[in-house]
């Protein structure tokens, strides 16, 4: 319940006695009446008999009325203020105001020529204007990490306002839980009147989980957001394939959001090296996000930067999403086999499948080595390995392979050797946490034809490795026959991509670390299956190879204010040049950590960063957060309530509210009007009484 405070409290004590003047006069009148010697009291007695019985009551009513008038008069002189917003003001006590200013992306929503950020600065200046000489104030620039403008609360309001005006808007999220925690830690063990003002648009992503712990002060919310806002945003964009080769189709999967109550049809443009290469119109239903794949080609190898954009709206930063594309000319594929390279060996068929044109004409350049030749040097620049007919893994070789896969390398392991069952057991033993989806036992030899040839029965055709057999192409699988294979059983159906007609696994995949291992329980040797003779074979091998690419290496996408480390050798680093999206060269100071061979860059701008190293250029696409794109605020009435007055939610706005927090709601004019009304009532009442006597 609200209570009253008085600016001139001493007036209450000083003037309170005058309230009783009417009753004192009444009593004195009774005690010391005028003495009038009158000719005859005969007619006075007669008049008294005619007097209304209510007169005495009226008399007391009149006294009460007059007391009330004086009471109001005393109140007016005492300048009463009604305590509002749950403020527990104590006269003359020092205040400490901590203002948590939302500096997230959604505060840049510019509608009507003003952003919530600018509105917030205006409101904060109004709040600061209520601080008197001894009051302490501080402003916390609330981004992903709260940063106070002053290390300690200050009385220097002018300096603080100057810093506030110089504050640059940030296009990231805001962590209000951390900001509130900072404020409460700052308040600890202080006896001032503690007030936290939160100036924000209360965007729902930011405010969904914010809690207000108990503290012996007040928290006030200042909403500066747009009441009805709508926004379209590109939430994300990624390349489906990690390693892109020239002239291969590039699939860009973009997530686009419509945060409005209307259906929107908008053009989406894709730019590569600032040249528009694709424009497509899409329709977005209200309050939805859709995923859309855009396909395009790039004919030359190289480092490209791209952007996907939609028309500008009130929040421009999330209308454009930057990415990079690294197109390679050719990719070296390692084939490990311990058999001689002749026309009967599977490696021969794999080479033919990977590079059907011979020499350097295809995208893939296969290179055959034996298991004993496997070393970190042989793995340099290799992302994909094919294994067929190898000897048992030595621990050393197995460790090389494990590191290769952990770092994002991919392996296609044909289970066509004599010791593959043992090798798989070793892999399961040495590769921590690797549980194969299938187990194999003994090998079925082609000489034991009693079992007959196996065919594929069923498979997971959503897998990118089997996509070429989608729909009408599925029939091609039925022509494939396999004579030699390992007897196998399923451990985990999730990883099995293809089954033989006896329900044993024929193709299964394991993800390990950053890489993948695809186990093929068959051989491509023409004596052990007919696959190599089939026209689907090279296409399938090429498709498998392409889909082995790890997506993380395809594009360099970062979020604004993130840091990234770029590796080079220290000699080259000295000569490196880093260009921000606006073309400015980042000075050494911008390089946060400068350890030999590595540079750390903190991205402060949205767009494409260029890291120019001698003979090499790296690109990085920097984008704003998408957590702020839905600019709707939380239900303001569900904001965390003041813990010491749980019924109070202090939504405040404007100078009058801020002054009311400080001094309470001034009641002077209400009292003055009431006083006039009471006086008018008193006159009316007297007139009425006169008429009735």
């Amino acid at each position, binding site marked *: 319940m609200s209570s009253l405070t008085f600016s001139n409290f001493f007036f209450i004590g000083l003037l309170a006695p005058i309230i009783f003047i009417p009753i004192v006069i009444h009593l004195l009148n009774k005690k010391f*009446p005028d003495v009038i010697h009158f000719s005859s009291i005969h007619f006075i007695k007669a008049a008294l008999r005619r007097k209304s019985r209510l007169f005495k009551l009226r*008399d007391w009513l009149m006294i009460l009325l007059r007391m009330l008038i004086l009471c109001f008069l005393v109140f007016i002189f005492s300048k009463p203020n009604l305590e509002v917003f749950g403020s527990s003001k104590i006269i003359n006590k020092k205040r400490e105001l901590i203002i948590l200013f939302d500096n997230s992306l959604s505060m840049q929503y510019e509608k009507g020529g003003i952003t919530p950020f600018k509105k917030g600065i205006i409101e904060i200046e109004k709040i600061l204007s209520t601080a008197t000489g001894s009051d302490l104030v501080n402003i916390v620039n609330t981004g992903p990490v709260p940063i106070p403008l002053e290390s300690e609360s200050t009385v220097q309001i002018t300096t603080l306002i100057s810093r506030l005006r110089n504050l640059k808007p940030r296009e990231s999220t805001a962590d209000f839980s951390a900001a509130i925690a900072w404020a409460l830690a700052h308040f600890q063990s202080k006896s001032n009147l503690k007030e936290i003002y939160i100036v924000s648009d209360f965007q729902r992503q930011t405010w969904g989980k914010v809690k207000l712990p108990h503290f012996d002060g007040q928290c006030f919310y200042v909403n500066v957001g747009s009441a009805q806002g709508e926004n379209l945003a590109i939430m994300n964009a990624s390349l489906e394939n990690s390693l892109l080769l020239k002239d291969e189709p590039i699939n860009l999967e973009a997530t686009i959001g419509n945060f409005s109550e209307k259906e929107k049809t908008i053009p989406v443009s894709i730019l590569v090296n600032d040249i528009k290469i694709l424009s497509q119109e899409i329709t977005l239903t209200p309050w939805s996000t859709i995923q859309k794949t855009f396909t395009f080609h790039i004919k030359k190898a190289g480092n490209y930067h791209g952007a996907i954009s939609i028309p500008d709206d009130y929040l421009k930063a999330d209308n454009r999403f930057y990415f990079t594309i690294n197109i390679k000319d050719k990719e070296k594929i390692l084939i490990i086999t311990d058999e001689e390279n002749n026309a009967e060996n599977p490696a021969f068929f794999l080479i033919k499948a990977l590079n059907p044109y011979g020499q350097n004409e295809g995208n893939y350049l296969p290179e055959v080595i034996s298991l004993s030749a496997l070393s970190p040097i042989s793995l340099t620049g290799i992302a994909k390995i094919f294994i067929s007919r190898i000897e048992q893994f030595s621990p050393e070789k197995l460790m090389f392979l494990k590191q290769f896969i952990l770092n994002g390398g991919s392996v296609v392991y044909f289970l066509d050797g004599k010791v593959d069952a043992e090798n798989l057991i070793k892999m399961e033993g040495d590769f921590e946490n690797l549980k194969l989806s299938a187990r194999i036992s003994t090998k079925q030899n082609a000489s034991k034809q009693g079992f007959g040839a196996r065919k594929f029965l069923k498979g997971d055709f959503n897998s990118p490795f089997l996509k070429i057999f989608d729909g009408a192409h599925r029939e091609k699988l039925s022509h494939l026959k396999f004579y030699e294979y390992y007897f196998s059983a399923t451990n985990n159906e999730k990883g099995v991509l293809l089954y033989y007609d006896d329900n044993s696994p024929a193709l299964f995949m394991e993800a390990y670390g950053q890489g993948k291992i695809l186990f093929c329980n068959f051989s491509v040797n023409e004596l052990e299956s007919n696959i190599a003779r089939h026209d689907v074979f090279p296409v399938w091998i090429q498709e498998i190879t392409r889909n082995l690419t790890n997506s993380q290496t395809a594009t360099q996408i970062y979020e604004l204010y993130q840091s990234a480390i770029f590796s080079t050798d220290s000699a080259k680093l000295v000569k490196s040049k880093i260009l921000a999206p606006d073309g400015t060269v980042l000075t050494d100071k911008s390089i946060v950590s400068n350890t030999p061979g590595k540079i750390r860059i903190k991205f402060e701008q949205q767009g494409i960063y260029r890291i120019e190293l001698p003979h090499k250029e790296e690109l990085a696409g920097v984008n704003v957060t998408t957590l702020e794109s839905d600019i709707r605020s939380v239900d303001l009435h569900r904001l965390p309530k003041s813990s010491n007055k749980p019924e109070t939610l202090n939504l405040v706005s404007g100078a009058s509210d801020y002054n009311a927090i400080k001094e309470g709601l001034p009641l002077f004019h209400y009292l003055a009007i009431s006083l006039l009304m009471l006086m008018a009532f008193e006159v009316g009442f007297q007139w009425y009484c006169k008429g009735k006597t």
Partner: protein
Amino acid sequence: MQKSELLNPEELAVFEDLLIFAKTTVQGFYSGKHRSPWFGESAEFMDYKEYYPGADASKIDWKIYRKTGRLYFKLFAEETDMPVYLIVDKSRSMIYSKDKELSKYSLAIKIAAALTHLLIQQGDKVSLTLFDKKISSHTASGGTKNHATKLIRDLAKSKPMNRTDINNAIDECVWLFKKRGKVVIISDFMDWNENLFDSLSKFLHRNHEVLLIHVLNDNELALPTSGMANFIDLETAETIQVNVEEIRENYQKELKKFTDNLAFEATNRRIDYFLVNPINPYINALESFLTFHTKSKNRKS
């Protein structure tokens, strides 16, 4: 002169004031008017006046007609032997005065003095009776200037003292006033009751003509300005505490009812009633008397 007739200095001052007041008031009253307000058939010839149609033809002086051929009738100063009985209330209620202004009693004796002077000057006989609960003094009628002086001295000497019993006083007066005359009672009539007019009727039965001059103060008409007040009755010493503002309106109604009733009862009995206007009380009182006098003459004729 007897010792009892001697005036003390204060009374003497009052007497001189009254005397001067009576003379100046009457002179002032007549200034610019006809010398004598009434004309009759007394032996003292005053003037001739040409006859005008409608005038009393019996009063034509035929001797003049014979000599001049024109019709004149003689005008005489009136001479009557009807005495005027002035009865003045000197009860304690007459002491009341508004603040430090003239008391009602002072007003009453001034009116009485002025009437005395007027009547003696006109050749009438005047008697003076002062009463409270009974007659306290009575001076028989006389028409000389010395008599007038005596009456005024009596008035100056008198002091209101006791309660009123106007009925008793009137009853006593009825037996005192042997000769038919004009009875003028100057009082506040605060002791009024239903029997008053029964008593006054006795005057009427004896062919007296009666004029009631009602003297009231401003404050008695509207109550004094005050809040809570203790009213003490000047006659009975009874006390009552009231909030003046509370009862003022009712009081005024009661008092108006009283004066209206008095006037109504008087009219019913062919008694003249006059409530003295506090603004110009003496001239009003003299005028009321002259009106009363004229009316009585008309009634007689």
